[in-house]
């Protein structure tokens, strides 16, 4: 398989076997982070869903409830 995407001298990093973690386990904080490859970020593609009404959107800083995720510096149950 060709592992070089046009970057001379640099082969692509071989795919690493990512452990199969259920969403439920992740929610419980059981992600085996030390088994994941370094420096890989995962961003799921957003789907257009519910939207806030205009004034609430301005107050919350987003029109999407899906993205209204204030960071509280601690776990939220």
């Amino acid at each position: 398989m060709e592992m070089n995407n046009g970057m001379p001298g640099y082969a692509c990093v071989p795919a690493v076997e990512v452990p199969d973690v259920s969403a439920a386990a992740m929610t419980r904080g059981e992600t085996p982070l030390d088994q994941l490859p370094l420096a890989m970020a995962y961003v799921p593609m957003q789907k257009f869903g519910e939207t806030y009404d205009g004034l609430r959107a301005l107050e919350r800083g987003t029109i999407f409830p899906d993205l209204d995720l204030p960071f509280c510096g601690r776990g939220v149950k």
Partner: protein
Amino acid sequence: MAMTEQQNLMRRLQVQSFAIDDIKLFLDTHPNDRLAMEYYQKYRHLREQTMNNYVKQFGPITPDQVEGTDRWTWIDTPWPWEGVL
């Protein structure tokens, strides 16, 4: 304290402008999303109405909204730093 008609229109402009800014970010990565396009067009239309309404009653918000050849009305309304709104 009750909002004046001018404050009310300005608040609506802020609300509608924010919704448009945010849906634009979504559309940048989802250019074929029909629901998002409908949302964009809806708010663009609303904002246009609010803007026309505001400018007609309270004067230009940006200099390019000065109409006609009688007078440079841009100077007739308070400057932003005068804190009227």
